[in-house]
């Protein structure tokens, strides 16, 4: 297992490295640059700006300088758009916010989703099942960019219970709507996957054996059915965890949370090269790390898997 982990970590470094290189060149392939604007800058002004940021250097040199700055100084470069801040500032400010509401959304979606799925499977073909399945389908059909406006209209305008946006250090009243918006559709998916997985497991031979031994149903479910049920759920949860952090751009836009999700999209649109690369490296590393954790957790859930 230790060997496996070390091997995976070794592969992770070139993976992220290739990600950076691909992103760097794709970014420069896109037409326009950070200083392309409605009012084109006079050539002398543009030359000064490009000289300051090193954009007048050949691409390989820019890439080399960028990478050496990261390795030697942990400096991810300046932002071309937000002149008062650099990439380190932007990530340090935005990532904790994304991480906070992303993790809470993940927890909410997992706990509610798995509980619903299990309840539906155990009470197969009863009203609980029908209710859980309908709720799951409904939730799945409500992605965060639909939930956002619905929540704001309901809780801010009509009921007047919650502020319509902002972060204010993550106070609870500012957290509720982002977390609900982001978790709803995942919750639906998790419930459906858990339900079908559990139904399959409950029909397996080893469950029949457990029941034949005379074990109480509670023990059958918790001790024998639970782990294999969660296996497909875990493989779904890994990508979801990364997605709630990266895919939170709509939450950032609708609720003005100040998270990092919007920087990912905005920096691509404004050709803010260093910000885009910095966020890509962060999310790339996060994806690699979460995938590794997912793989490792398989071994715990399924004794048949050995690394």
């Amino acid at each position: 297992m230790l060997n496996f982990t070390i091997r995976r970590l070794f592969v992770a470094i070139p993976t992220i490295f290739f990600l950076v290189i691909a992103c760097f060149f794709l970014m420069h392939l896109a037409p326009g640059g950070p200083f392309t604007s409605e009012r084109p800058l006079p050539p002398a002004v543009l030359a000064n700006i490009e000289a300051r940021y090193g954009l007048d250097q050949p691409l390989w040199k820019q890439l080399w300088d960028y990478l050496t700055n990261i390795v030697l100084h942990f400096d991810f470069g300046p932002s071309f758009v937000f002149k008062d801040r650099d990439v380190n500032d932007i990530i340090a400010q935005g990532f904790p916010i994304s991480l906070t509401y992303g993790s809470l959304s993940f927890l909410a979606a997992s706990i509610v989703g798995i509980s619903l799925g299990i309840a539906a499977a155990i009470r197969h073909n009863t009203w609980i099942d029908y209710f859980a399945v309908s709720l799951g389908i409904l939730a799945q059909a409500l992605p965060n960019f639909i939930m956002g406006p619905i929540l704001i209209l309901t809780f801010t305008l009509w009921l007047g219970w919650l502020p319509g946006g902002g972060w204010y250090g993550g106070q609870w009243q500012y957290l509720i709507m982002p977390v609900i918006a982001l978790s709803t559709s995942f919750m639906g998916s998790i419930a459906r996957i858990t339900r079908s997985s559990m139904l399959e497991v409950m029909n397996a031979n080893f469950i029949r054996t457990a029941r034949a031994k005379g074990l109480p149903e509670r023990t059958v479910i918790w001790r024998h059915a639970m782990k294999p049920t969660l296996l497909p759920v875990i493989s779904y949860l890994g990508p979801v965890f990364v997605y709630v952090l990266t895919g939170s751009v709509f939450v950032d836009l609708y609720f003005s949370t100040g998270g990092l999700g919007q920087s990912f999209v905005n920096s691509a649109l404004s050709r803010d090269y260093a910000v885009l690369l910095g966020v890509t490296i962060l999310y790339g590393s996060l994806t690699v790390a979460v995938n590794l954790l997912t793989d490792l957790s398989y071994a715990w859930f399924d004794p048949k898997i050995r690394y």
Partner: protein
Amino acid sequence: MTHTSKFTIAALLASTMLAGPVFADGHVPAGVTLAADQTFTYRVLDEHSSVDPQVVEDVTGSEIVRDLFEGLMNQDADGNLVPGVATGFEVNDDNTVYTFTLRDNAKWSNGEPVTAGDFVFAWQRAADPALSSPYQWFIELMSIANAADIIAGDKPTADLGVRAIDDLTFEVTLSAPLPYFPQMTTHATTFPAPRAVIEEFGADWTKPENIVSNGAYILTEHLPMERSVRERNPMYWDNDNTIIEKVVALVINDENVALTRFQAGELDRTEVPAGQFPRLSVEYPGVAISFPRLCNYYYTFNLSDSGPEAFKDVRVRQALALAVDRKIITENVLAGGQPEAYTFTPAAVAGFTPPATDMEGMTQEERNAKAVELMAEAGYGPDNPLTFDMIYNTSEAHNKIAVAMSQMWKQTLGVEATLANLEWKVFLETRGNQDFELARGAWCGDYNEASTFLDLLDSSSGYNDGKYNNAALDGLLADAKMSTDASDLYTQVEGIIAEEMPVIPIYHYAGVYMMDSDVGNWPVGNVEQNWYSKNLYKIAE
């Protein structure tokens, strides 16, 4: 001989009024009861680029900078010049040397006096290649002596035509007379900068914990992408007349969310989303407001060698311009009180009289009939339909307008226009490289004078993406630069544009806002929308 400007007199008048009680300085009408909570909260579309006056390049940032810093001159509610740090200025006979007298009670927020040296430092800094501000061009546009050479790196910044004669006298030497030069000193790029603070903190000097500013407000909080807060600066020389205590700018990207939050009472001001003004002005009379802005919206023909042959025929350009029913676009598509455009320069521009164009005088039926006639003359008709591509940047409103225009052309003239929307930067690159046939354009004035628009059609302009080239027009614009009253020349230029139609003006912008009725003194008459929080107040409800 030099002549003293009227601003010195205005300043004298203003200063005599300062002796009066607080709130009685004239910007609060009698009978108005002020609210206990003087906090003004407004929505901004995007995070600002910077609050460094020499670096800031976006509207949102300039609005904040205008509160935090004060330049030589300010604008009043109608856009007229009023004294800022300068009490007035004198100019020599050939309009090339301006001497500003600074008030002796202007202070930085750390208590240090604001001196002419602070302006010299700031203006040199703006031109400095080392700072590489995108607004270096503005210093060049101001025609300050040696600006171009300094930006090109051929001369040191110390050679810039600015000088502190003493602490309270600031002198500017221009390379050529510029009639609207004083107007330009209301622009953020020209605001003073605190040398000692910048040298101490470097790029971090604009952080709330470090920043020192000389305006009516100081930056007290900045949470990027969420909000920024500025609060009253007790060191400001006119602090006694400042009423708003605290200004909060909330970043809300989605305009519909912003509208909802306005309706929930979280905001005092937000923009009205396109098409919603008619409904909102019924539901919220007096709150949904619309007023003219200094911006135009147009389509430009590619008249360069890479452009289609058909557009080189003025009859085709005329016909396409005539067949656009601007009333439908302004009343049905945008529906925000935008004026229809038959000239390139908005009528709201100061000192500009739009010429009475033939097109404006006709009914749409007459225009369509004329358009059909012109198209037939140019050799296009049902057997030989004109086809071309038109591009615009991705946006719902641009898309609706483009669809409407192409339908009008199809129905009236049988023209087949193929629409293509492009992502913003791709669009700019495509248009800038003349890789288009017909392209959307829009321009907001940098200052309240017609040349800020008409210069776009000068053959030497870097912004002339259609590569329109007309010697007569270039000549008139060159004359206007030297003239003290150029309004007649500008009318002639618009006459040429109406005849030659190198662009199709569609509409002129309107500021369409939801403005809470408890906000007093919003400068709706300032077409540049240069507003100062210190002139606003909140009324008790």
